[in-house]
C-alpha cells in the first residue's frame, strides 16, 4: 500500500515537469519577443526591458527554465498585462469559485449518475433502461453552453425562478451546477451501466445467487463494489472534462472563476495569466487523479496488498 502510494506520488513528478515544460515553451513558441508578449502590446519599452532582465531572457534557455521553475516554486507567476496585478493574486481570487462549482457538479453527477446506471443495468432492456440510455446519450451529445442558455431562458427569464448569472446565494449555484453536471451525469450513468452489466455476468455473482442471497444484497455488496472500481477511474477522468466544461459554463453564467479568467485573458492576449491559470488547471487535474488512485487502492484489496 505504502509502496503503491509512493509509486503514484513519484509518477506525478514527470507529469509536473511535463506541464511546466509545455507552459515554458508555450510563450517561446509565440511569434515575437517573449518579454514583449508578457508585457502586453501596450507596455512601454522600459517595462519590456524590465521584464527581460527580471526573467533573464538574455540567458541560455535551460537557465531560463530553471529560473522559471524557481519562480513557480515561490508562486511567482508574473504580472497580468491587463490589470498589472500579480497573476497568482488573480488566480487566488477565482480558484475557490471554480472548485466550488466543480465539486457541486461532480457530486451531483455521482448522486444521479451512479444510481441511474445501476437501475438500468439491473433491468436491462426495460423501459427504465431505455430511458436512462437515451437520456444519457442526449446528455453526452448536448453542448453545455447551449444547455446553459436554454436553462437560463426557461428558469431565469421566463419563469424568473433563478438568477441568470453571477455569484452570491445558493440559488446562483443551481443553474451552473446542473449545466456543468449534465455531461458528466450522462457519462457516469453510461459507464456505471456497462460496468454493472459486466460484473453481473461474472461467475462470483452466480455463486452469490447460488447461496440464496437476496437480490438487493447481491447487487450492492457483490456487484456494485466491484463495478465501482472502473467507475472511480472514470469519475477522475471526467473531472478533466468538467474543468473544460467549467470554462464554458462560467462564461455562460458570468461565474467569476478560473475558466472565465482564461477566456478573458486569451481575448486580451494576457499571456502571463493564461500560463498561470492553465498551470493551475493542470495541477488540479493531476491532484484529482492522485486522489482517485488512492480511493482505488482503498476499494480494491488486490491493490491494497500489492
Amino acid at each position, binding site marked *: 500500500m505504502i509502496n503503491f502510494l509512493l509509486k503514484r506520488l513519484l509518477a506525478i513528478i514527470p507529469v509536473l515537469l511535463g506541464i511546466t515544460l509545455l507552459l515554458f515553451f508555450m510563450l517561446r513558441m509565440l511569434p515575437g519577443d517573449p518579454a514583449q508578449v508578457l508585457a502586453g502590446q501596450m507596455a512601454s519599452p522600459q517595462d519590456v526591458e524590465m521584464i527581460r532582465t527580471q526573467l533573464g531572457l538574455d540567458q541560455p534557455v535551460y537557465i531560463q527554465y530553471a529560473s522559471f521553475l524557481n519562480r513557480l516554486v515561490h508562486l511567482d507567476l508574473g504580472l497580468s498585462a491587463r490589470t498589472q496585478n500579480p497573476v497568482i493574486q488573480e488566480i487566488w481570487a477565482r480558484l475557490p469559485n471554480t472548485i466550488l462549482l466543480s465539486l457541486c457538479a461532480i457530486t451531483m453527477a455521482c448522486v444521479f449518475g451512479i444510481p441511474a446506471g445501476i437501475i438500468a443495468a439491473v433491468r436491462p432492456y426495460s423501459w427504465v433502461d431505455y430511458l436512462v440510455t437515451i437520456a444519457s446519450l442526449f446528455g453526452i451529445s448536448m453542448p453545455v453552453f447551449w444547455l446553459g*442558455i436554454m436553462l437560463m431562458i426557461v428558469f431565469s427569464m421566463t419563469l424568473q425562478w433563478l438568477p441568470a448569472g453571477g455569484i452570491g446565494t445558493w440559488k446562483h449555484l443551481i443553474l451552473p451546477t446542473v449545466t456543468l453536471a449534465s455531461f458528466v451525469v450522462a457519462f457516469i450513468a453510461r459507464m456505471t451501466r456497462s460496468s454493472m452489466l459486466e460484473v453481473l455476468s461474472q461467475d462470483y455473482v452466480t455463486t452469490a445467487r447460488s447461496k440464496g442471497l437476496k437480490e438487493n444484497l447481491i447487487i450492492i455488496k457483490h456487484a456494485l463494489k466491484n463495478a465501482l472500481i472502473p467507475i472511480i477511474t472514470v469519475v477522475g477522468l471526467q473531472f*478533466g472534462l468538467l474543468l473544460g466544461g467549467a470554462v464554458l459554463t462560467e462564461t455562460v453564467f458570468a461565474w467569476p472563476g478560473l475558466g472565465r479568467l482564461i477566456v478573458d485573458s486569451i481575448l486580451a492576449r494576457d499571456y502571463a495569466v493564461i500560463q498561470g491559470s492553465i498551470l493551475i488547471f493542470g495541477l488540479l*487535474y493531476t491532484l484529482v487523479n492522485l486522489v482517485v488512485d488512492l480511493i482505488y487502492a482503498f476499494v480494491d484489496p488486490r491493490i491494497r496488498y500489492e
Partner: protein
Amino acid sequence: MNDIDINTKNNDSDSVGDIDSSSSRGWAKLKRNKAALVGGIFLLIYIVCAFGAPVLFWGNPSAPDLINSLSPPCAKYLLGTDELGRSILGRILYGSRVSLMIAVGVVGVGLLFGVPVGLISGYFGGKTDFIIQRFTDMLLAFPGFLLALALVAILGVGLKNTVISIGISMIPIYIRLVRGCVLTVREEVYVEAARASGTKDRHIILRHILPNVLAPIIVQTSLGMGTAILFAAGLGFLGIGVQPPTPEWGSMLGSARAYMMGKPHVATFPGIAIFLAVLSFNLLGDGLRDAFDPRSKI
C-alpha cells in the same frame, strides 16, 4: 458455468468467437441496431446538408438584411434571422459544412499521428515506447478542452488553427488507445504463431495487428468526431474559434447570447444543430462498438 457459454454463445462451429471475430457478423449486428440506424440517418442528413448547402439554400448566408434583423421564424426566413438579419437556416446549413470540415480535419490529425505512433510504441516497446508514453502523459495532464484552449492561445483563432489545436489535443487519446490495443493483440497467440512461422515484423503489424485493432479505432473515430464538433463549437462560442462572418454554429450561439431575452430562437436553432450532429456520431459510435468491439466500455 462454462457450459452455458458453450451453449448460448460458443456452441460448436457456427457461432464461436462470434462476438468480434467476424466483420460480416458485425455488419449484421450493426444493421439490427436501431440506435445506430437512427444515427446513420441523422448523419446522412447532416452530410447532405454540408455538401448540398448551396443547393438547399440559395443566397449568401453572410448577406445582412438589417431591416429584417432578429426576425422570428416566418415564411421568408424559416428559422428566423440573427442580429444582422442573416437567415439562421442558411447559416446553419453552411455551418454544417464548417463543422463537418472541422470534425474530419481534427480526427484526421489525430489518426495521422496517433495511429502510427501508437502502433510503433505498442509493438516495439522499450525506450521509444517510454519516451512516447511520457510525452502523452504530459499532454494528458491537461483536460482536453483546456489543452485545445491553450493551443489556440498560442496559435491564434481561425478555422485552420481550430482544427490544429483540437487535433493535437486528440493525438494522445489515439496514441493511448492504439497502444493499449496493440499491447493486448501483441500477446495474442496468433501473433506468436505468425512469429513462429517466420513472418516479418512489418507483415505482423500490417496483417495481424492493425486489422485487429481497427474496430476500436473506428469506434473512437466516430465518437471523436462528435467531441471535435463539441470542442469547436465551444471555442466558437467563446469567440476564439472560427471567426465571423464564416457561419459557425458555436459562434452563432455566442453572438445570440446578447438577444436571448426576447429572441430565444436565435440561440435555440444552432444549438439543436450541434446537438443533432454530435448525437448522430455518438449513436453511430455506440452501434459500431456494440457490433465490432463489444468488450470495450464506455
